[in-house]
């Protein structure tokens, strides 16, 4: 065996070390706008969605290039698969190799702003333009009152139901626009179960952590709870609060009483006619409508407390602070979030909810449910996931807790564990890391001790 094989840890660490290697670029890598035969090139990164969406994105870039050919301007668009997109961005950021403009997931905005990597967009969108975006899109891209990211589309989760199956069990769907209370929801499940119909699909087999935080945070919020304190990076006493224990115990009952499967084998039991209700997103609307036609109904998610809360958020666009010319990069962000040049082609391709009010006219389906409800809840009851630099840790630990809770873990112990794990990450950074340093610098500038 060679000397190297004697120390095989070398190979084990390939992953981490390659990150380290990539970071070795150091300062001085800031890019000027690339010159390509007299043409200015805007480097742009997008997540790789389904092929129709990618095609739409390429079409948008092509149209941009045609429209700006006279100015000698061109976008260079690259796609990266969404399961490694966050890693790709992190490595590029560390190596000072971020593209001029890039797509990012809504909850990641705060972290990139905290690291000083996103440029402000306020200057590039006037008041009227900003008012044309859904409030959730503005909220998702805003940190400390400043706008850093805007998207072309948003998302929605509703409770789809099969009218025939509900009728068979004598269950009446909610008639008002508020949806069911949690008790009404549980009663409906009981009746369906008694009638021999499997009540509900919750998609617990979803491999992505984000589904859990995204789809079930409304349970916590509508019960009066929070995932993280709003005034400080603190989850202790917040994640395992009395309200959250109550809400998530009630949520756990859905699984312990077998209203929904914790380990479903069929990814689409509602579409296949096996369950009566489906707790899922806008992305299933087309398929469900095709399968069920008039039998398909949709209502808001059941609420734990007084007021219903809906989830929201999706991919959005930001301009890098490393961009050679932020103004040119912002030109692309304006183009891809414009109702005509960006929103319409993208929404036609991926079926998401248009991010701009002026774009809805092009989508007549939004006069009826489930689409009407998507827009309605984004305008009124939707709440973005916490905008904190610690979101990635928070969602990972919270999602793991939800998985375990659904499978019968003790709610209080499991939430406390998540609380401890997230808080220790926060304390480490706030204690010895960047944030404390900046506070110290600010204090020194103000002449405080």
């Amino acid at each position: 065996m060679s000397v190297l094989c004697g120390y095989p840890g070398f190979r084990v660490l390939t992953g981490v070390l390659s990150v380290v290697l990539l970071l070795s670029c150091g300062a001085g890598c800031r890019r000027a706008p690339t010159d390509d035969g007299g043409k200015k090139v805007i480097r742009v990164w997008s997540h790789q969605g389904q092929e129709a969406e990618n095609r739409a994105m390429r079409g948008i870039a092509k149209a941009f290039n045609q429209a700006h050919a006279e100015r000698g301007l061109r976008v260079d668009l690259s796609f990266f698969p969404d399961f490694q997109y966050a890693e790709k961005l992190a490595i590029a950021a560390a190596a000072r190799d971020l593209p001029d403009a890039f797509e990012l997931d809504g909850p990641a905005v705060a972290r990139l702003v905290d690291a000083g990597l996103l440029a402000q967009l306020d200057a590039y969108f006037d008041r009227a333009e900003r008012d044309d975006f859904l409030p959730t899109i503005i909220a998702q891209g805003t940190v400390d009152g400043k706008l850093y990211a805007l998207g072309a589309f948003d998302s929605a989760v509703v409770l789809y139901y099969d009218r025939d199956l509900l009728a068979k069990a004598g269950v009446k769907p909610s008639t008002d626009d508020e949806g069911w209370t949690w008790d009404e929801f549980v009663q409906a499940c009981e009746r369906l179960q008694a009638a021999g119909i499997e009540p509900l699909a919750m998609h617990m087999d979803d491999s992505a952590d984000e589904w859990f935080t995204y789809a079930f945070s409304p349970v916590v919020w509508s019960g009066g709870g929070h995932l993280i304190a709003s005034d400080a990076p603190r989850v202790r006493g917040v994640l395992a609060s009395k309200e959250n224990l109550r809400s998530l115990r009630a949520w756990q009952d859905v699984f312990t009483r077998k209203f929904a499967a914790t380990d479903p084998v069929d990814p689409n039991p509602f579409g296949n006619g096996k369950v009566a209700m489906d707790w899922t997103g806008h992305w299933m609307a087309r398929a469900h409508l095709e399968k069920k036609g008039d039998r398909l109904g949709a209502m808001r998610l059941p609420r734990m407390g007084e007021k219903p809360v809906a989830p929201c958020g999706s991919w959005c666009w930001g301009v890098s602070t490393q961009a050679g010319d932020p103004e040119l990069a912002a030109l692309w962000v304006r183009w891809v979030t414009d109702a005509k040049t960006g929103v319409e082609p993208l929404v036609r391709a991926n079926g998401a909810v248009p991010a701009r009010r002026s774009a809805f006219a092009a989508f007549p389906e939004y006069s009826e449910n489930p689409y009407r409800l998507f827009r309605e809840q984004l305008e009124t009851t939707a709440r973005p996931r916490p905008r904190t630099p610690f979101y990635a840790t928070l969602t990972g630990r919270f999602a793991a807790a939800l998985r375990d809770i659904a499978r019968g873990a003790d709610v209080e112990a499991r939430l406390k564990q998540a609380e401890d794990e997230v808080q220790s990450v926060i304390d480490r950074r706030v204690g010895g890391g960047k944030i404390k340093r900046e506070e110290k610098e600010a204090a020194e500038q103000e002449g405080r001790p």
Partner: protein
Amino acid sequence: MTVWQRARGRSAPWFLLPALALLAVFVVWPLLRAGWWSFTNADLLSPERSQGVGLANYADLAGDGRFRRAFGNTWLFALLVVPLQTVGAFFLALWVNRPEPAWRWLRAVFFVPVVVAMPVLAVLWTLLYQPAQGGEMGPVNAALAVFGVPPQAWLRDPTLALPAIAFMSIWQGVGLQMMVFLAGLQGVSKELLDAARIDGAGAWQRVWNVVIPAMRNTIIFVVTVTTILAFRIFVQPYLMTRGGPGNSTLSLIQSVYEMTFISQDLGRACAAAMAFLLLVGGLTWLQRRLLKEERE
């Protein structure tokens, strides 16, 4: 020393240079850099703004319950896998070590899981381990039910999840070690075995007194490689349980990955990676000290 030998001595470094340069760029330099960062509070997104924190990252890891859990899980996994897989592979090799074509097929069958991509196997075994739900049972539970074993939630039970993953990993990896043992078996002298048989040694005695001593180097190699592979456990638990339930299947590599890309705490991730390097490197060194290879 002949002229040729002297010339060879002088030119040797030049032949080594390309390899050494690649090693320096892709191994030594990143390693030094990672070592350096492990003593800082570097943030993945802005590493140039880091400050020295001494040994704080290491001390912090030692006191971190989640990291310690990952450490313990990885050890437990290795302790389950290394002996079982080595012994299993050895006896499989003895069993299929026959010249007839039918046995060649059997060898291929045992080797198939080594060739199939791990993510595919992880999904497959997740389905096999499916707990009983709504009257349906996963194949593993259905098979055990024949023997009167009540159905288990294999991957959902904190005490069963890690052993279940270890079993699947042994099944997946045993074919490779079996092949190495098979190659080693070809080197066992036929004359010695025949002599032992003539002297009246039974099957067990022949294995214990002839085959195993003759295969000493092969066994050492297999144990060393299996140990290294076992400590690198990541894909199976990451895809099958995400490190849960609780943190019962959290691996060291997953925790380093999470420090790097989820909490983006580069300094701490580098410290964890260095600790991991020392652990595996140290273990390998120890094994090679204790189990000296025989050289001719």
